């Protein structure tokens, strides 16, 4: 179940490596990452190589309106750029457009 959807019974522990296994080729089974502090796994579409657009889509932000940052090195990822995902690493995806009740920042 996606974390974008309403939260049901899927509430895990804080341990990021719960259920983690490593395959013979060094690839992670049950690969998961965190976007805006929410956990996403292969069932949500996480793959070992993803584009910025796909990462942004995990939290429902269109890539054209997203700023995507890999937190481990602060790298900004463009929509069509591909990145190799490390197990349990964190990304931040923020909207480019933020409007308040009295002003707007583009």
């Amino acid at each position, binding site marked *: 179940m996606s*974390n*974008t*959807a*309403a*939260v*049901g019974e899927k*509430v*895990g*522990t*804080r341990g*990021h490596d719960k259920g983690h296994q490593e395959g013979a080729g060094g690839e992670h089974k049950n690969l998961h990452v*965190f976007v*805006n*502090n*929410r*956990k996403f796994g292969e069932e949500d579409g996480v793959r070992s190589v993803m584009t910025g657009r796909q990462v942004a889509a995990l*939290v*429902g*932000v269109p890539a054209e309106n997203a*700023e995507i940052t890999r937190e481990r090195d602060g790298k900004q990822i463009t929509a069509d750029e591909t990145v190799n995902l490390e197990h349990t690493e*964190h990304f*931040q*995806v*923020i*909207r480019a*457009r*933020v*409007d*308040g*009740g*009295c*002003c*707007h*920042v583009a």
Partner: protein
Amino acid sequence: MSRERIERELAVLHEGGLEAALVSSSRGDCVLYRNLPTRGAKRNLPSVADVIVPVPSGYPAAAIDLAGLTANSALLPHLVGGTNSQGTFVAEGQTWQLASYHPHGNGGGPPWDPMQCGFHTYVDHLLAWLARLNQ
């Protein structure tokens, strides 16, 4: 208000390393998000902030709205809606001021969908809010 639902939503964030808790306040229940990152450091403003969000009456049918910082926060004048106070109240021994920020009401976010949205997704809007500082 569905307390159990909110607790589940906050547990999702906790798993991702973010501290957020349901707290009582002088205006009712709120969710307090701790140590959210801002982009204020380059302007000698705080690089992290605690943000409080009221639990709307009728949640989850009613949309989450607004966001507040401590009333003396140097960040408030630099945040969209920050100079348009939506009220002050007391929680956790501090006075908080709500900004005119409405992510699900033409504030830049998607329309409110109680099946998709919650306090675990509202953090997306808080991160964007704290990143987009005015002059």
